[in-house]
């Protein structure tokens, strides 16, 4: 279930642009016609002449209309740490970044591990958020990794998947039972992959970590956890999604699992596609992520895996942290970076560098996450919700605190200029963001 923001009424047309919706075969000149929060028509046939006179029109010359992005990994601080981020402030950042649906993580305080909490988040989102919101609920009660949460009741309340978002399920038997039980309810199990006993470090293990004198976190910690999880998927047949992978070896593991026909998908954060371990530089804590930024070879392998579809989705892994958790010695600082504002623009750098075609980038951030969760959005087609973004590929903007809408400002792109961004974001037919430089 997804919170439903108030729909706009009336008919509106976006004309003279490029319409890009990969799985509908749309990637060329055209327009979009919407009414009362739903798409009436999309494609080359939507023109000034075809829409009649009753519609309000917007000119999209030199712009691209894409499905609104669906971000499968967003941390907010609501409830519990509203000073870092609320559903409202996160949704504001999402809207500015072309994200029309946020899937929020359950490690709030209290944890989203029972039906009442799912209900609370959905109601709060409906009342305060600009974009659609749906929660993942915990796999284990209290995220303690011991006892299975009430998967059936959580699903009935509206949770879209179950996930212990920052820790691997250490107990293999619990994950086995979770996969087995969740399958009965057609519930996706989403996992953080990191062998806990191997992952005490704060940066990627290797020369860089040694030079900085920081404890390293080896890529194998991820590969071992992932391999184990996939054996359990093979055993149980449960649907599994690795929330984010960060290294080349994990790409191989996923590729093999998919070749076997296992019900497996995976994601990668935008930061692991665009940054590497050297960016940590002089102990810059905004680059302290979990899993850590890896080597340039790993980054290149991840980019290639997104391009060829081995990696299914790109996520922001938006994790707002305040100054008091980031302005600390590197080892003591919190993990995480904000990403809702910048995910789309950062992804466009991969398009500008000819690494990944635009259609694939858009698919990995809209249609594919929608398919994984069974959402009806994420596409431009008659009958779909009017959730979309208007993209200006050449609009450059500078990432400064003032430009970030998230309540926290821990962006690894701070002070950088990015090329291309959403200039208008529409959710349920309502414009929730319009770019004003």
């Amino acid at each position, binding site marked *: 279930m997804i919170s439903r923001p108030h729909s706009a009424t009336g008919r509106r047309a976006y004309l003279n642009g490029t319409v890009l919706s990969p799985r509908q075969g749309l990637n060329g000149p055209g327009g979009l016609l919407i009414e009362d929060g739903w798409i009436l028509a999309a494609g080359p046939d939507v023109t000034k002449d075809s829409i009649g006179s009753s519609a309000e029109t917007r000119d999209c010359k030199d712009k691209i209309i894409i499905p609104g992005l669906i971000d499968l990994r967003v941390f907010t601080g609501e409830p519990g740490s509203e000073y870092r981020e609320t559903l409202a402030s996160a949704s504001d950042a999402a809207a500015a970044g072309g994200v029309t649906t946020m899937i929020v993580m359950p490690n709030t305080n209290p944890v989203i591990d029972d039906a009442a909490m799912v209900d609370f988040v959905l109601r709060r989102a409906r009342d305060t958020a600009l974009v659609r919101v749906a929660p993942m609920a915990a796999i284990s009660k209290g995220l303690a990794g011991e006892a299975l949460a009430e998967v*059936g009741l959580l699903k009935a309340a509206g949770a879209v998947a179950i996930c212990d978002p920052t820790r691997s399920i250490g107990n293999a038997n619990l994950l086995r039972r979770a996969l087995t039980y969740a399958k*009965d309810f057609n519930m996706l199990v989403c996992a953080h992959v990191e062998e806990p006993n191997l992952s005490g470090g704060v940066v990627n293990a290797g020369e860089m970590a040694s030079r900085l004198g920081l404890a390293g976190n080896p890529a194998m910690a991820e590969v071992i956890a992932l391999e184990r999880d996939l054996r359990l998927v093979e055993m149980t047949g449960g649907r599994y999604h690795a929330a984010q992978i960060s290294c080349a070896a994990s790409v191989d593991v996923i590729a093999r699992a998919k070749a076997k026909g296992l019900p497996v998908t995976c994601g990668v954060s935008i930061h692991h596609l665009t940054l590497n371990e050297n960016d940590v530089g002089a102990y810059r804590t905004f680059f302290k992520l979990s899993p850590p930024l890896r080597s340039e070879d790993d980054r290149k392998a991840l980019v290639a895996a997104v391009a060829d579809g081995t990696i299914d989705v790109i996520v922001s892994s938006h994790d707002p942290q305040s100054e008091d958790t980031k302005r600390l010695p590197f080892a003591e600082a919190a993990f995480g970076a904000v990403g809702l504002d910048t995910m789309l623009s950062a992804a466009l750098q991969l398009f500008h560098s000819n690494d990944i075609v635009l259609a694939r980038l858009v698919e990995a951030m809209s249609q594919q996450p929608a398919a994984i969760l069974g959402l009806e959005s994420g596409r431009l087609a008659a009958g779909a919700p009017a959730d979309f973004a208007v993209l200006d590929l050449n609009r450059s903007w500078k990432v400064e605190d003032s430009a970030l809408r998230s309540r926290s400002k821990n962006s690894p792109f701070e002070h950088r200029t990015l090329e291309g961004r959403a200039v208008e974001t529409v959710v349920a037919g309502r414009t929730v963001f319009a770019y004003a430089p």
Partner: protein
Amino acid sequence: MPKAASRPPLFASQHMLAISDFFPIEIAAILDLAQHYAEHGKALSPAQKVLTGQTQVNLFFENSTRTQSSFEIAGKRLGADVMNMAIATSSVAKGETLIDTAMTINAMHPDYLVVRHQSSGAVELLAQKVSCAVLNAGDGQHEHPTQALLDALTIRRHFGKLEGLIVAICGDILHSRVARSNIHLLSRMGARVRVVAPSTLLPSGIANFGVEVFRNMADGLRDADVVMMLRLQLERMSGAFVPSMREFYQFYGLTEEKLAHAKPHALVMHPGPMNRGVEIDSSVADGAQSVIREQVEMGVAVRMAVLDALDRNKGAVT
């Protein structure tokens, strides 16, 4: 008193260890004799008390109320001297092994040993070491043959047959010896057996037992003639196999609403003891379709029949 040899044998085995050891014709013969005892068992003449002068020892390594007392009453009605070994205060509690305990009891020459043990296969191990007839009163998660016989007798009394009936066994199949014995017996007798449970409570390979597998009650109960609920132990509901009691009740607890998917006069059964409000709602447990108390009544008759039948086979002991 009629000599054992003057009464025809009902089956070949010297013991009652597992339903899977018995042919359908043998099971039918036991049920026929049990039906006889159900009607006449309470007022037997001295001549009909075929176990007079024999000794029955009840050896329960696991707690039991109804099974142990049912075996005790069955033996006494047939004239046997019945002794209950109190395991908690016995030498088992002092560390004696199962086999030493068996040999000690065997040296006292009982005629029947009724055994319940928490380990699968323990009763069969014991049967190899003693010279009397052994009755399995439940071994681990393996079998509980007299429970399956009493369930079958209860069903047969209502429908006049077992063949062709749809029987849905619901709940904790994984840990249930009652489910296994019932699956073996009912499918042998031509009933269509279904199991209904969350996947975490289904043993692997269960479909190869000749049952239909369902993960939700509405589908599993559709058109069923018999709905057999199993006890879900409390320690299995706290997140290990099932997230919580309330979730189990919501999706798998037998309520009137879920029972409505079965045939209108479907029987509701439970081997006991029940967790009311967990696997079964009180309104169903005490409702018009419930035969739970009749199951207990049939328990005594079935155990009399099995003891009688084992007595008949004594002459054949080699």
